[in-house]
Each structure stands twice: as structure tokens, then as C-alpha cells.
């Protein structure tokens, strides 16, 4: 294992994402968040471990199940809540909502609700870095379902030809919307889809933030040093259904429980406790602290005014 950074911030961030998502559910039930939401409880090790391996000036694109990457990349929970509540203080000024958390100031080029649409955009970012000889890397997060879309194959192909500084991160949570992966995809390990393009494809335990971090760091360093693209497949699981209204009854009995037995927060928490870095009691206290922060952030977000029509109309064209 590489020299590991301080894990307590990772643990804290994973808790923040988990509690953020739970709060979103609560606010949705209370009618403060409208439309729909796609939550990522159970997947927290992927955004936290992968984003931790990025430099500050690297960029990412991600998906409608994108709260995790946004928070991991440093988006303020209040700005995220405000966006979900359609407030002017939201990260997209209330234009985007849950599926489109975007923060250019943090190199978050956009969460995207069109499956596969973020891949070529991230590749374009990587191309710009390469053309200008900047030591920067683009990451693109997408789901297992996106590996069946044309832009996935187009982007891997071109990234390989260009030796582009990009890392393709599949968050394989076993379900594309309401369909199990096996019913739509003929192979189990999606990392194999790197083979036709002659780039490395790596299967990664997406429940263990250390393993996510190590593999992402290797891929990022490879990209930054001119070695080209890598496809990472993070094996993980979403505890909730596809979207807010989905009870996920299509899942076989026992599957959810089996994955919860390898909960990413518990895995890191157990490690921190056994290494004497953070006791179980300290972890409980931290959870309470983060929970209070999340509640306060949601309250502040709810108090903000809605955006105005004048404001958004000024964002259609330059000047």
C-alpha cells in the first residue's frame, strides 16, 4: 500500500455523504426537495477514495447519482442542499437540481443526466491539458449502464489513440436503473471492456476506500506522466433504489444485507478503530457532529430565496 494520507478526513467525508443523502430523503418526504433524487448510500468509498487521489486543478465529470463526487470534491453541503431545493444560492443557481450538481471552481465540469454524455466532455478536457502541456488529469465517473452506450466506446477508443490524460471510473452498482446488469450486459467484469482499446482495465473493490484510492492514484499518476488512459471498475452497491420512488423490489433476497455487511464506512471505521486512530466512541461523536452540520446546512439552504427570472436569463448568451 502506498503512503496513506490521513484517513480521518476520508472517514468524515464518507459520513458527510451518507448523512447528506439521508437528509435528502428526509427533505424529499417533507416536500422541500422536488422532482427526483438518485442517492448513493453504500457507494461512498468510490467518490471519496477516487477524488482524494486528484490534484486540486484536475477535473471531473459525473452523473445524476452525483452528490457523492460533488461533496468529495469540496462542494459546500449548503450549496448542494440549496441546489436541490431550487434556491438562488445553489451551486447552479437553482437551474440544475439534484441531478446536475456542478461547480466549475472546483473542477467539477458537470453532473450529467444523459447516460454516457460526460465521457467525451471529460476527454475534451484531457485533450486541452495535453495540447497545452499542462500536468492535469480528467476523471469521468459513470455507471455500469453507460458502458453499453456509444460514447463510452468512442471515448475509450479516442483516449487510447491520443494517449489522453484521463481516468474512466465505472461505478458498477450492479443495476442500470431498474435492470440488473446481467440482464443487459453479457460480461460480469466491465473492466474487460478496456481490452479492445489496448488500455489497462482494473477491477477494484469499491467498498474499501484504501483500495479505491490506491488504484485511482496509480491510474492518475500514469495519466499525468503521459502513460494514457485507464479504465477502473469500482464494484459497489447502492443501498437505495434507482430514484426516490423506487423500493428496489427487483433485488434478490439477501443481496442488500450481504453488501451492507461490507459497508464502506464500517470497513474504514473498523480499520481506524483497530489502528487506534479513532475509537468507536470517537466515531459516534464524529457522526453526531457531522449530522449537526448537515442539519444546519440544510436549514441555511432552506432559508435562501428562490432565483429570479432575470438572473437565469442573463446566463443564456455571453454579455
Amino acid at each position, binding site marked *: 500500500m502506498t503512503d496513506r494520507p490521513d484517513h480521518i478526513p476520508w472517514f468524515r467525508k464518507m459520513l458527510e455523504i451518507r448523512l447528506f443523502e439521508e437528509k435528502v430523503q428526509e427533505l424529499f418526504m417533507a416536500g422541500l426537495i422536488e422532482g427526483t433524487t438518485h442517492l448513493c448510500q453504500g457507494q461512498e468509498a468510490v467518490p471519496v477514495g477516487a477524488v482524494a487521489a486528484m490534484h486540486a486543478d484536475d*477535473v471531473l465529470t459525473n452523473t445524476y447519482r452525483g452528490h457523492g463526487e460533488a461533496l468529495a470534491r469540496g462542494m459546500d453541503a449548503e450549496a448542494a442542499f440549496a441546489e436541490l431545493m431550487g434556491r438562488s444560492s445553489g451551486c*447552479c*443557481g437553482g*437551474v*440544475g437540481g439534484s441531478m*446536475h450538481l*456542478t461547480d*466549475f*471552481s472546483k473542477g467539477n*465540469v*458537470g453532473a*450529467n443526466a*444523459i447516460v454516457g*454524455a460526460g*465521457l*467525451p*466532455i*471529460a*476527454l*475534451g*478536457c*484531457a*485533450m*486541452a*491539458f495535453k*495540447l*497545452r502541456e499542462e500536468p492535469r488529469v*480528467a476523471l469521468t465517473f459513470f455507471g455500469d449502464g453507460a458502458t453499453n452506450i*456509444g*460514447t463510452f466506446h*468512442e*471515448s475509450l*477508443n*479516442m483516449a487510447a*489513440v491520443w494517449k489522453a490524460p484521463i481516468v474512466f471510473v465505472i461505478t458498477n452498482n450492479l443495476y442500470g436503473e431498474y435492470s440488473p446488469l446481467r440482464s443487459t450486459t453479457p460480461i460480469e467484469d466491465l473492466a474487460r471492456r478496456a481490452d479492445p482499446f489496448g488500455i489497462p482495465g482494473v477491477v477494484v473493490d469499491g467498498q474499501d476506500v484504501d483500495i479505491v484510492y490506491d488504484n485511482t492514484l496509480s491510474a492518475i499518476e500514469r495519466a499525468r506522466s503521459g502513460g494514457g488512459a485507464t479504465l477502473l471498475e469500482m464494484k459497489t452497491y447502492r443501498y437505495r433504489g434507482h430514484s426516490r420512488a423506487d423500493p428496489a423490489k427487483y433485488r434478490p433476497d439477501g443481496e442488500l444485507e450481504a453488501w451492507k455487511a461490507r459497508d464502506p464506512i464500517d470497513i474504514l471505521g473498523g480499520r481506524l478503530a483497530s489502528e487506534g486512530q479513532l475509537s468507536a466512541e470517537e466515531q459516534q461523536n464524529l457522526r453526531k457532529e457531522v449530522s449537526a452540520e448537515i442539519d444546519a446546512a440544510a436549514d441555511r439552504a432552506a432559508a435562501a430565496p428562490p432565483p429570479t427570472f432575470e438572473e*437565469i436569463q*442573463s*446566463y*443564456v*448568451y*455571453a*454579455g
Partner: protein
Amino acid sequence: MPVRTYIEAIRETLREEMRRDASVIVLGEDVGKKGGVFLATDGLYDEFGEGRVIDTPLTESLIIGASIGVSVNGLRPVPEIQFADFIFPAFNQIVSEAARMRYRSNGTFSCPMTIRAPFGGGVHGALYHSQSVEAFFTHVPGLKVVVPSTPYDARGLLRSSIRDDDPVLFFEHKKLYRSVRGEVPDSDYSVPLGRANITRPGTQVTIVAYGLMAHYALEAAELVEADGISAEVIDVRTLRPLDTETLLDSVKKTGKAVIVYEDNRFGGYGAEIAALLAEEAFDYLDGPVTRVAGPEVPGVPYSHGLEDWFMVDPDRIAEAVRRLAAY
């Protein structure tokens, strides 16, 4: 003043903009060593190298998606879609992504890119090499849509488009590439986006057109002059944003309007102009706003006679002008 073809004007403007601004890059299918199927990018690869003149596979979605990525990082890509008919795989990237980048980022980011695409019929290209696709894009706020008809405008509008901070669709009528020549000054002039051009003044009927049809409209105006009808011709040049003032001023003067477009009539771009005139010049109209456009078939057909049947020509425009003048 030097005389150039339309395609020469495009090529030289690309070269000059790339010399002027190192952030301008060109990418697309065969735009590099081959110089593009119409040779619009001929010579650029030799001068600027593979880092700025980039051959891509036949993947329009990726060409535009990657252009978005480079443009939000400070470059000014000029992607070429080999034929406008091939643009639909990239439709999502243009409409859902490029058009919304500024909007979704609170005005902090945009896609300064110019998507060049040859369009239009009359060249026996048939179902997949002849279509007019502008109406799909003029509908979308956040996009600009430009259709030059002369070498002078091709150069001046391409300059403005490349220098513009918003995504521009730049449709070049492929029949004009080598059939039209015109004076093009060597100076660094530009034609601003959003300004129509009165290419022939007149008093009795306004003919509104763009692209190849802007030429046919002028020919039609000559034809009806023999009948004693004075037609004013407006070349729209920029379809979005539309120069409503020039159109309305003209129609308020003439009281009659014929709108010409090559695409099939229903839901075409000319319908928007017709609606504009009906809403904002109603009190000035002395006859029905009239459209001359293509028939309701889902593509320009191949066989010579069929293509002639599809294509609007000067005679059909003149006929409509005569009818309306007599109304």
C-alpha cells in the same frame, strides 16, 4: 480587391484565425492530412501540425463532446461535421450540453466553439448528403446559427463566430463552395452576428432567404422586375439571433413578404419569420405572408428529376412573388 470562391474564403479565414490565436484548433473526420472532404481545411495540417488540426474517427458525438471539453478549458475549437446530415449523433452534445453550459454554470463557463457543417441539396447527394438541418438548432436558446451565402460573408461571419464566446453552428451551403465567387478584402474585417443584409432594395415585396436561396431570391427579383414588380431581398445571414429590426422595417415598407427556405416547409425556420411578421407587422401587411419551401418528404431524393422537384428554384420564388404582388 481579390476575388475568392466561398470555400477559399472559409479556408483562408480558418488559417488566419489559427495564426492570430493559438487557442483555435480544428478537429473532425479527415480534416488533417486529407484537408477535409471539401478541402476546407486543406494545408492547415502542414502549417499547424497534428496538435491543432486533429483527425478524429467517424464519431460525431465524440467530436462535439470533446470540443465542449476543450472549450471549457480555454481553447476555441472549430469542429467540422463532414456533412450536416451527420450531425445527429452529436445532437445531444450540442443541444443538451453545449447550449446549456453557460446556463448551468451561473454564467461562469461557456463553449466558445464554431461547428462547421456543409448542408443543402442540389448536388445529387441524396438522403444523407443533402439535408438542411438548421431548424433543429435555431430552436435552442444558447446556440447561435449562422448561414453565410457569399464569400465576403463567409469570411466575415466565420471570423465573428470563432471569436464569439458562445457555441455557433456555422452552416455552409455545399453547392456554393465552388460555384460562387466574390470580392473578399484581405483586411481583418468581420461581419457581426445577428445582422441581416438587404442585398437588393425594393418597394413592393420583401423576399427573405438565406444560403443558396439568398442567391435564388436575387435571381427571382430580377425575373419579376420584368413584370414591373420591385422586390426587396434580405439575406438573413444569422438565423439566431435574428435581426428582427431589418425584417420588420422592410415588411412595414413593402407590406408583403415571401419567405424562402430549402428545407421542407412544415415547422421549418421560415415559419418563425412568418410568425414574427404576423405578430409584429400585422397592421402593415397587405397580403398573406407566404412561404416557398421544400415538399413534405423526409429527405432530398436522388434521381435528377426528383431532386429538381424538391429544390426551390428562382422560378418558383418569382411565381410566388407575382402572386403576392397581385394580391
